[in-house]
C-alpha cells in the first residue's frame, strides 16, 4: 500500500484497507475544504462524508491522467455546493460587530493570522459571498465557470466576490484594531 496509484487501484478493486488509507490521506485536507463552504464542523463532516462516498463510488472512472487530489477536491467542492443548494433553512449570520476575537489562541507566535482565524472569518460571510470567494480565490475558477456551477450570472459572481472582499476587509480591520488595542 505505497503509492497513490496503488491506493487508487486498491480502491477500484473495492478493498477496504485501501479505502481507509485513501481516507486517512485526504480526510484532513478535504475537511478543511468542506469547512470553507459550510458554517460548522458537523456540516463540513457531513459534506465530506457524502463526498467520500461519491469518490469511492466513482473512483473507477478516474483515468490517472491528472492529479488525484485535484479530482477528489473537485468532488468535495461540488458536493459542498450541492449541499448549500439543498439547505432550506435561512442562515442567520452573526453581526460582524459581535465577533469575539481571541488573539491568544488564534494568532501564532509571529503575530500572523492563523488558518483557523481566517476560516472563522470566511464562515462569517453569507453563503453566496463565501462560495464565490472560495471558488474564485482559493479554487481558482473563473467567473464564467462559477456562474455555470452556481447557476447565476457572471456579473452576479463578480459582485458577490467584490462584496465578499469588502466584508473580509471590514473583518480584518476589526481584527487588526482589536489586536493592536489588545497589544497595547
Amino acid at each position: 500500500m505505497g503509492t497513490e496509484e496503488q491506493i487508487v487501484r486498491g480502491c477500484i478493486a473495492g478493498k477496504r484497507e485501501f479505502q481507509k488509507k485513501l481516507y486517512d490521506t485526504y480526510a484532513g485536507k478535504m475537511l478543511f475544504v468542506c469547512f470553507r463552504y459550510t458554517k460548522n464542523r458537523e456540516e463540513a463532516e457531513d459534506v465530506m462524508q457524502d463526498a467520500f462516498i461519491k469518490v469511492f463510488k466513482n473512483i473507477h472512472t478516474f483515468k490517472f491522467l491528472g492529479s488525484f487530489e485535484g479530482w477528489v477536491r473537485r468532488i468535495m467542492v461540488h458536493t459542498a455546493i450541492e449541499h448549500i443548494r439543498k439547505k432550506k433553512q435561512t442562515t442567520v449570520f452573526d453581526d460582524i460587530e459581535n465577533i469575539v476575537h481571541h488573539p491568544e489562541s488564534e494568532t501564532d507566535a509571529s503575530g500572523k493570522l492563523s488558518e483557523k482565524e481566517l476560516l472563522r472569518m470566511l464562515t462569517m460571510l453569507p453563503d453566496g459571498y463565501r462560495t464565490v470567494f472560495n471558488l474564485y480565490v482559493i479554487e481558482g475558477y473563473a467567473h464564467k465557470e462559477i456562474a455555470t456551477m452556481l447557476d447565476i450570472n457572471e456579473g452576479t459572481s463578480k459582485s458577490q466576490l467584490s462584496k465578499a472582499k469588502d466584508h473580509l476587509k471590514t473583518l480584518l480591520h476589526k481584527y487588526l484594531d482589536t489586536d493592536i488595542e489588545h497589544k497595547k
Partner: protein
Amino acid sequence: MTELKSPNEFDSLEAFFNERLKDASFASPQGPWVQIEAELQQMEKEKRKRRFLWFFASGLILLCGLASLWFFVLSDKFESNTIAQKQNTETIAAKNNSIQKNVTPPVTENKTIENLNPPIAEKTEKVNAEEKSTTTEKTAVVQKLVASLTSSNTKIQLAACTKKANPAIFNKVPFKVIEVQGNDGYIRYFAETSTNKEEALKTIHNSGFEKAFVKKNFQPMGESAIVKNEGVIETELASYVAANIPVAKTKIVSEPTQNNAIAVAAIKNTPETKTVKIPTENNAIKTTEPANTNAISVNSTPAKTESNTTTPAVVYTNIPTGNNSNSTAVIPPAENKNTNTASVPETKTDEVKTSPLENQNTNTAGATKTDSVAQTIVTNEIKPDSLPKKTEVVDSAKTTVADVYPASFTPEWAILLLAGPNIFAQNVQSSVITPANESQTSTVNIEAKLQFKPFQKFSFSAGVNYNQLSISQGNPAYFQFNKNQTTDYIFYSSHGAMPVRMRTMLDGFNVAVPFDTFFAKYTYTSKLNVLSIPLEANFHFLNKTKFSLFAGVGVNTSYVISQQTKLTIIKENFNNDVSYNNITVNKFNISMLFSLGCDIRLGKKLYLTLVPSYRYGLTNMSATSGTTFSPAYFSGNAGIKFKF
C-alpha cells in the same frame, strides 16, 4: 509567505487567503469514516442484491426461453399428431364404406367358428408378436406414399371434391390413385402413371373420368393418402403434409394415436381362411379373409346384400380410450336373445369383445357366430343408427375421432403480465406508535408469471411481483423532547425506527431558554420496494370457450429490495427533512395468497386476465420491538395472458 500586517496591504488579500487556506488541513477525523464504511457496506450489499436479481431475472428468462423452445418442439409433434388423427378418421370412414361394399359374402357352410376364429387370446399373442414388424410395414407404406407424391410420374387429376369420394369409383382406373386433401378445402384425386401420358389420359377418359386432365407442376400440399394402388386399396392410413417433410416426421406410423379401430371383413369364395393383421400399434384390427389374399380386394363383389348371409368372419376391435388403457367394443352386444352361442369370451389382455348381432336363423355355434359378423357389416351399412354412437363414427366422415374419444388434455404454458392497484388493510399492532394516525396508501404492483396447466382443471404459476408498501402520517403529530438528551431522538413508524441527531433536533431552538422541553410536530412517509415470488395453485372451475373462471391459493415470498423514508420535523420557523434508506425492517417475509380470477379470450392465444387477489402477511415485517406489522392488502390486477 504573504503577510498581512496592516490594513494597507489589503491589495494582496486574494493572494493572502489563497496561500494560507489552499493547502490548509485539519487532523484526519475518524468519525466520518465509520459512517462511510457503513455506507460502503450497504452499497456492496445492494450491489450483491442487484447481481442476484440480475441472475434471477436471467435465469427466469432462460427458463421461459427453454420452455418456449420445448413447447414449440412439442407443438410440432402435436400438430403432426392432430393431422394424423384427422387423416385417420376421415380415411376410416372411406375405408369402411369401400370395404363394406366390396366384401364377398358367401362362404362354405362347413366352416366352424373354431376354424374361422382361432381363440382370441391366440390372436392377441400374434398381434403382439407382430407389432414390431407392423411398424416397419407402416413405415414402408408412408415411404411409398411420399415417394409417389414426390415422383416425377405423370399425375392426372381425376376429380376434385369437397367431401371424400368413395374409392370404389376409381375401380376402373387402371392406375394408382392418390388422394390429396388440399388446404383450399378440396380433396383431389390423382392417377399416377409412368407410361405415355396421352395414352394414360385416354384410358382414364374411357374409364368414365371424361374431364380428367394432366396436372402440371404437381405440388402435393396438404394431407394425402393412397386410395388405390395398382388395383388394390391400401388399407394403411398415411399422411403427407408437404413434399419437404421427411417421412419420419409424419408420425403416422409410430405415433400411438387414438384412432378408432374399424372392423373389417373381406371374404372370398375360398374354403381356407387366413388371418391378416392390419398394422396399427394400439388398435387391434383383424380381418379374416381368404388365404390367397393379402389385402382387401377392391374388385370383390360389393356386400350390399341385406340378406342373412352366412359370412365367416370375425370382427373384434380394441379401441384405446383417452388414457390408452381400456378398450371398448365397437360391435354392440347381441340383440338376439335366441342365439345360444352369442359371444366370444373376453380376454383380459386387451379386453377384446366380440358379440354377434341380430340373427334369426342361427342353429349352431359356428354358424351363429359367422352369420352374426356378416350381419354386422350389413347392418352397419343399412342401419347405422342401430349401432351405438361409438360405432357411428366409423360411418361418418365428418365426425372426428376426437369428438367421440376426446383427446386427453394437452398441458399448456402461459405467460401472464399483470398490473394493478393495491388497497391496504390496516394490520398494525403497536405500543410505540398510534396505528390510527398512520395510513397505508394505495400503491401499484406489476407482475410477470409463468403458468403451467398440466390438467384441464388445475394450473400452477410462479413469477415475480414488484410491489410498494407505503405508509404515511399525513397529519402532523405533536411531540416533545428534552433539550439535554444526549442520544439520538427516535421516531417510530410501523416500518421501523427513525433516529435523529440531537443537533438536528435542537436546530432552530434557542437552547439558552430556561426550560428543558421543546415542542414540535412531525410527519413521515415511508416506502418499501418489495420483490415477491408468488407461487400459486389454481382450480379452473369453469372452462368455457370464451372465458374461464378460476380460484387460486398460494404463498407469496417477498424481499424488501430498497426503501425510502422521509421524516419532516416541523418547527416554528422552518422544517428539518431527514431521509433514510435503511431503516430496520425484516426483509424476508411470507404471506398467503388468495385469488379469484377470470380469463377472457381475445384471440387464439391471447387472453385478458382479471385477477383480484388478497395477500395476508404471515410474518412480522417490523423489526421494532412492540410493533407488529404484517401487510395485508387487496390487489386488483389485470393484464394479458399469452398461451403458448
